[in-house]
């Protein structure tokens, strides 16, 4: 159905007096000061104008609630819009994550930016294009089908009219229904979607001229640092301000409850003040002993048990005679985001209103949290996204935004806060520890008769998924005491058709550190345990691991089956059971496979990892990783490959070496020496097979490939040395211990 539109005279360019930064092709950044209090932008997801504006010169602005955190989606969203609208790619610019300008499309998480956010923008573009064609048809007195359109110009014979002439600077005033989207183009007509358009941000990033949040300077801006407590539960007892008297440029020590910060004229003065300020804190030792972390997890009070998979009757099946029983326990360490740049934000209070600039992945949510924290009406808070160091979930960006707001309020001037490395490693929210028990039975023919899994993972207290802001908690300001690890139950159930299945998630009341979602939250830990244990069953059945998986996949799930077959072909898979036979020598090699259907509903990934294990040293080297990936319609193949590389490399790092260290008070892995991440010499070769399905809907790709990497490595190690590793990370000590016990 085509909607009619009446271009209104309402001014569409607005800013509300704050800095707008947008990106256009060629990387030109256009910081501009808004022209006073112009008309507010429509922000409803049900309006075309919330997503799109076209000016008199035909330039298109996309307003995206989803943000580019370094993944390249800025470019991909512009591709989707330009193609659907029939304008040149270079005519499109993207404004991201500004609560006054962009609709609330939800957090930038869960591999949903293209799949959900991009498709909403595509819907707006298709609706706008249809309306523009209809308008042109009226003008030329022809049927819309007789029109042609390219580069934002509509033609009927030798007559022509541009989008800029039809709508320039005015609103569409058209409704959108995302449940019943407009008719999109026939995929065969896409000219920009599916192309590896170079990313718009890279020219400036390589020139050192990219407008990161870290580089934002406002007039009169001061620099702040926060002095975090020495433990999670310490109380602030005393502050000796005379201890920093000798440091030039100190403006103020800000203290409220257990929140303590310093504000200075320069960043270096703020850093020195934070380092040298003499502070008395109470002692607190409420954390569990690290060596007994998983005993603590197992003993934690269960808030609720969620059954996520239930087929047949597993207890009956497992009680039968003549079957082989297997049981194993897997655990996965606490991880930090480890963003390369510590979290950074700028805030300004003026005339009772707060403006916050940060790299938040969810500015609309942050706005609600800041409004709650400062007891302000939501409409008096504006949160603006500026890209920062990459984050892989909810890291410390939001906390730094709240820190900056605390300090800006105290001193009445704009304040920039950048955390220290120790702040970032110590105080970003963590990926919670995960403990998984698995049991299964096989009959005499090696067929799986029952599968049971139990996951011990923290609860999710609130449907809004708000991770409490550290300074609000420290200062005793209003903040919900939520536990928000994300949708970590996902992929606890399995895609395999066993006769009897039971998967249960024991949602724990508490977890030792403030949790949040870190790349592939839950899906990765759960898939890790499931796919390793499945490999244990394959080995027990003396079956090839890929053939074993194919045997149990739903025959109707053709895409899943093809993904596994494609990775087998890509890796030149040697069909045989694991482990390898007849190995000798100290360094032995092996290969392992893993498969996921993300959240059991979307993106398919299969990987094969090849490893070399130095048995004497207990050192695993991942030498090569093959990836077959089906995320439906591919918007930008090179961007997708870049994401897959990142998934693999980051996950090799997390699997082999990463583990949060802590004592009874606090995190002790506060730098890159104590929390190491992968370095160049240890990065594997990566071979990718993109399964493009241009006629299918586009699915997410930022996370799914990560889900399968730890299990593929584990299975490859088993193939090499016949030892099953069940505790991430696979440090040399653990590898050697596993070999000694001959697990």
């Amino acid at each position, binding site marked *: 159905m085509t909607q009619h539109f009446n271009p209104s005279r309402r001014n569409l360019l607005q800013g509300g007096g704050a800095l707008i930064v947008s990106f256009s092709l060629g990387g030109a950044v256009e910081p501009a000061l808004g022209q006073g209090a112009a008309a507010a932008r429509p922000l409803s997801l049900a309006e075309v104008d919330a997503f799109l504006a076209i000016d008199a010169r035909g330039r298109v602005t996309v307003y995206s609630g989803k943000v580019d*955190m*370094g*993944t*390249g989606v800025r470019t991909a969203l512009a591709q989707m819009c330009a193609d659907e609208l029939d304008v040149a790619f270079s005519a499109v610019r993207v404004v991201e994550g500004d609560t006054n300008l962009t609709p609330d499309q939800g957090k930038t998480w869960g591999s949903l930016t293209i799949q959900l956010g991009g498709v909403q923008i595509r819907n707006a573009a298709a609706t706008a294009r249809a309306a523009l064609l209809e308008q042109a048809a009226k003008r030329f007195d022809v049927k819309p089908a007789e029109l042609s359109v390219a580069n934002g110009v509509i033609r009927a014979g030798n007559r022509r009219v541009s989008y800029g002439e039809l709508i320039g600077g005015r609103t569409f005033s058209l409704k959108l229904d995302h449940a019943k989207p407009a008719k999109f183009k026939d995929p065969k007509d896409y000219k920009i979607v599916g192309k590896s358009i*170079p*990313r718009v*941000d*890279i*020219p400036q*990033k*390589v*020139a*050192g*001229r*990219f407008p*990161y949040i*870290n*580089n934002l300077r406002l007039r009169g801006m001061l620099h702040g640092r926060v002095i975090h407590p020495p433990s999670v539960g310490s109380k602030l007892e005393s502050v000796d301000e005379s201890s920093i008297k000798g440091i*030039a*440029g100190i403006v103020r020590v800000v203290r409220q409850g257990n929140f303590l910060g310093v504000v200075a004229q*320069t*960043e*270096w*003065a703020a*850093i*020195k003040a934070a380092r040298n300020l003499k502070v008395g804190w109470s002692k607190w030792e409420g954390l569990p002993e690290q060596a007994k972390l998983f005993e603590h997890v197992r003993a934690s009070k269960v808030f609720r048990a969620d059954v996520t998979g239930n087929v047949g009757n597993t207890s009956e099946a497992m009680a039968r005679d003549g079957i082989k029983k297997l049981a194993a326990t897997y655990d996965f360490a606490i991880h930090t985001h*480890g*963003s*390369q*740049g*510590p979290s950074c934000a700028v805030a300004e209070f003026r005339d009772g209103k707060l403006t916050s600039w940060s790299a938040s992945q969810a500015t609309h949510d942050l706005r609600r949290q800041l409004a709650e924290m400062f007891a302000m009406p939501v409409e008096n808070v504006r949160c603006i996204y500026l*890209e*920062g*160091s*990459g984050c*892989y979930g909810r890291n410390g960006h939001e906390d730094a935004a709240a820190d900056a707001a605390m300090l800006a309020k105290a001193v009445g001037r704009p304040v920039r806060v*950048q955390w*220290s*490395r120790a702040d970032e490693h110590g105080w970003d929210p963590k990926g919670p520890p995960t403990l998984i028990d698995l049991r299964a039975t096989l009959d005499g023919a090696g067929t799986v008769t029952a599968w049971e899994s139990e996951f011990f993972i923290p609860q999710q207290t609130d449907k809004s998924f708000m991770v409490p802001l550290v300074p609000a908690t420290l200062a005793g300001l209003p903040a919900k005491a939520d536990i928000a690890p994300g949708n970590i139950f996902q992929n606890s159930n399995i895609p395999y058709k066993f006769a009897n299945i039971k998967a249960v998630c024991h949602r724990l009341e508490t977890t030792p550190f403030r949790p949040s979602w870190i790349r592939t939250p839950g899906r990765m830990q759960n898939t890790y345990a499931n796919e390793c244990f499945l490999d244990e069953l394959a080995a027990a059945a003396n079956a090839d691991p890929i053939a074993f998986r194919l045997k149990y996949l739903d025959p109707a799930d053709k895409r899943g089956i093809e993904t596994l077959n494609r990775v087998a072909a890509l890796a030149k898979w040697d069909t045989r059971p694991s482990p390898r036979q007849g190995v000798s020598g100290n360094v032995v090699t092996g290969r392992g496979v893993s498969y996921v259907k993300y959240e059991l509903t979307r993106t398919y990934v299969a990987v094969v990892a090849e490893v070399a294990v130095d048995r004497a040293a207990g050192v695993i080297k991942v030498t090569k990783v093959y990836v077959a990936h089906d995320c439906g319609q591919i918007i930008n193949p*090179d*961007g997708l490959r*870049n994401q897959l*590389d*990142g*998934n*693999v*490399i*980051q996950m090799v*790092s997390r699997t082999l070496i990463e583990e949060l260290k802590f004592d009874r008070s606090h995190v002790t892995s506060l*730098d*890159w*020496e104590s929390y190491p*991440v*992968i*370095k*160049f*010499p240890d*990065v594997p*070769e*990566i071979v990718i097979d993109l399964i493009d399905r241009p006629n299918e809907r586009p699915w997410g790709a930022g996370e799914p490939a990560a889900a399968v990497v730890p299990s593929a490595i584990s299975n490859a190690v088993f193939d090499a040395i016949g030892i099953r590793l069940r505790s991430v990370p696979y440090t040399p000590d653990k590898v050697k211990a596993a070999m000694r016990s001959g697990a």
Partner: protein
Amino acid sequence: MAERKTLNVNGRSRTITVDDPDMPLLYALRENLGLDGPLFGCGLAQCGACTVHVDGKAVRACVHPLSKVGPAQKVVTIEGLSQGRRLHPVQRAFVEEQAVQCGYCTSGMIMESAAFLAGNKKPTDADIKKALANNLCRCGVHTRIVRAVKRAAGVA
């Protein structure tokens, strides 16, 4: 006590006023001179995000005190690596290989690579990986970065 300090940055002599002569070079570049290419990553010389050249050598600006930088020493930041709008071959190679995700490490990677290539015309992949071993990238762009440095090697 505020004092004046003269630096040679990106081919120009610049005089700045600082309170602390031992302030790390990074803050002088970013705050006093507005050169935001080098970024703060750790303040511990562990990650490389702040890497600049001092007399052609890659230096971690986050720990390199101003007092150690002589007025005749040539400091080059990523902004000074290109000749006007003409990018340095390493920068061009990073664009050609699209060897960036968030880009927070990129400036340091490019500076480290440029200093390395100046003395190594035909590096192997292993040489490049070794040279960049102390520059961290959390997004996982390593394989593209190695390709970019190799691409630049012939022309850098």
